[in-house]
């Protein structure tokens, strides 16, 4: 297993070999985000701005106006919160060729606690026009997305995880913007996830299968722009849809999915799992995943509970049937 930050650092350094327009702008965290590999290989194209995230964005934008294709690397929280205003005006509103790598995203950031956890990044970034928002599942997809984003024209935000997860995609995987990726095909209970949480959701599906509940797993590496047809296709036959994200339940993956399904009168019921409008805390990864309901075990429990509630509702009303899912 390889952590996404390691993959990102290696991949950007590799792309740098063949693409001289790639430059890397760092905010004094290169040895955490793994931008330091690029720094060693290409010192002339590595720009250390220091602890000044707004300035990082402004400088990267300025470089982009001359044809450079900058990657920015810092902790996600400093990009999407501290530097949001320059991202909005200089990058999103102009459609600049700037790639934002949000490292240490989500809850798991080496016990740094709520100040450094970014569980609002997807909601914030996807609200802005022109912004492509990507959240890869594992090391394979992190590499694929990094390559895709390096070639893309326009602003991209990539959610990068600090710690390794179990690989869920094959080595020959090809990333396609917007498309839903079905990781487990069985079942009319559909778990939709994004980022590295998708890997834990696959484990949850395995736990559920062992308990006799067949659950499909759909991974959405693209939070924006969503390919609506692909999403609907992946949800065919769903009677209950459960979104799971290492992010607040407000405005992220669950929000995006509900926005799509709201257009269809026969959509299945949606349960959104994630940070339930609360701040988290410091702690080891396992502790946080367990306490905030994101470990495989806790996801499986919540799914079982949701299924029980769902079936009781069907039995009592008779109005909703499994056949009323998306066809």
């Amino acid at each position, binding site marked *: 297993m390889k952590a996404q930050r390691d993959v990102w650092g290696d991949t950007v350094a590799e792309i740098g070999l063949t*693409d*001289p*327009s790639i*430059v890397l702008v760092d905010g004094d965290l290169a040895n955490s985000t793994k931008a330091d590999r690029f720094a060693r290989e290409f010192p*002339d*194209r590595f*720009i250390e*701005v*220091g602890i*000044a995230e*707004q*300035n990082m*964005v*402004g*400088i*990267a*934008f*300025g*470089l*982009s*106006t*001359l*044809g*450079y294709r900058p990657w920015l690397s810092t902790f996600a929280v400093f990009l999407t919160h501290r530097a949001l*205003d*320059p991202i*909005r*005006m*200089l990058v999103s*509103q*102009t*459609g600049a060729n700037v790639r934002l790598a949000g490292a240490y995203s989500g809850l798991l950031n080496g016990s740094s606690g709520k100040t450094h956890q970014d569980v609002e990044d997807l909601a914030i970034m996807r609200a802005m026009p022109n912004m492509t928002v990507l959240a890869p599942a594992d090391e394979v997809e992190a590499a694929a997305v990094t390559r895709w984003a390096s070639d893309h024209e326009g602003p991209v935000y990539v959610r990068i995880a600090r710690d390794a997860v179990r690989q869920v995609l094959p080595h020959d995987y090809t990333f396609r913007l917007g498309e839903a990726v079905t990781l487990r095909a069985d079942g009319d209970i559909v778990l939709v996830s994004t980022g590295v949480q998708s890997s834990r959701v696959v484990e949850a599906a395995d736990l559920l299968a062992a308990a006799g509940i067949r659950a499909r797993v759909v991974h959405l590496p693209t939070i924006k722009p969503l390919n609506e047809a692909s999403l609907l296709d992946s949800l065919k036959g769903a009677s209950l849809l459960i979104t799971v994200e290492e992010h607040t339940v407000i405005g992220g993956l669950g929000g995006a999915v509900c926005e799509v399904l709201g257009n269809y009168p026969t959509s299945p019921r949606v349960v959104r799992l994630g940070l339930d409008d609360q701040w988290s805390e410091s702690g080891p990864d396992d502790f946080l995943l367990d306490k905030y309901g994101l470990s495989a075990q806790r996801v499986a429990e919540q799914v079982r509970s949701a299924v029980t509630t769902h079936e009781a509702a069907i039995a009592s009303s008779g109005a909703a049937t499994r056949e009323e899912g998306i066809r």
Partner: protein
Amino acid sequence: MDIDVSLSDPPSDARASGAAGVDLHRIARHVRWHILNTVAQSKAGHIGGPLSMADLVVALYFRELNIDPHRPDAPGRDRFVLSKGHSAIGLYSVLALRGYFPVAELATFDHGDSRLQGHPDMRLTPGIDVSTGSLGQGLSAAVGIALGARMAGQAFRTWVMLGDGELQEGMVWEAVNSASRFELSSLTAIVDVNGLQQFGWPAVDGRDRFDRSEPWAHVDLAAIFRGYGWNVIEIDGHDFAAIFAAFDEAGENARATTRPTVILAGTIKGQGISFTRGTYTWHNGVASEEQLATARAELMIEGETDESAA
């Protein structure tokens, strides 16, 4: 890769070709008229800041910058960033008179479907190098441009106009630090030190005359910039001779030093029109018909055409 390192086809040298016979005072009068009149017709917009920076921007576009209005995207052109983006109408008026777009288009300012947005939009308006509006961001963009120019072997220079009130934004100082750290001598910042802002400050002596002045009371801006490793030039921002002397010195600094240069230009907010001059109350405003007539007379617009100005 789309990085043009060719310097073989630079834009025409505006200072050489455009300087002779151009009456900058006259152009500046017309720019001031367009600022007041356009905002009055649009019924919304900023006045005081555009008027305070007007002479400096006229000097840049009619004498200093290496630009060609017919090739606004020429790779080797000098760059100008209006970091105090709310002064957009001042820049639009200069760009129109310089030939980037028709003077008549100024009438679309702030209207729907216009290229002339309330704050500068680089994707819409010919001659706008950087989108601005949210204060404090322009210098960082200019640092990136100047840095990129050096990396790509381009010789053009990068200019930024900031407001003294804008310097209260912390992001400015992040960029001030980077500019000297990166030894960007090709970068010149002009601060339009008009001493007022939208509402401003109570008087420091406790005897509030309600003039809301002195954004930087207790602070020596020149010393701060020097402390950050910048060349500092202090001038009267309404004196063309002083402005050009400062521009020449900044050019010399660009060649002979490793430090960026800041021109602290002392100006008067609302300069050039009696009722807008020296008051924060005309930060923005819509002139009445009577006030427009007064300004027209004071600016000696009667009988002159824009074409003759440029």
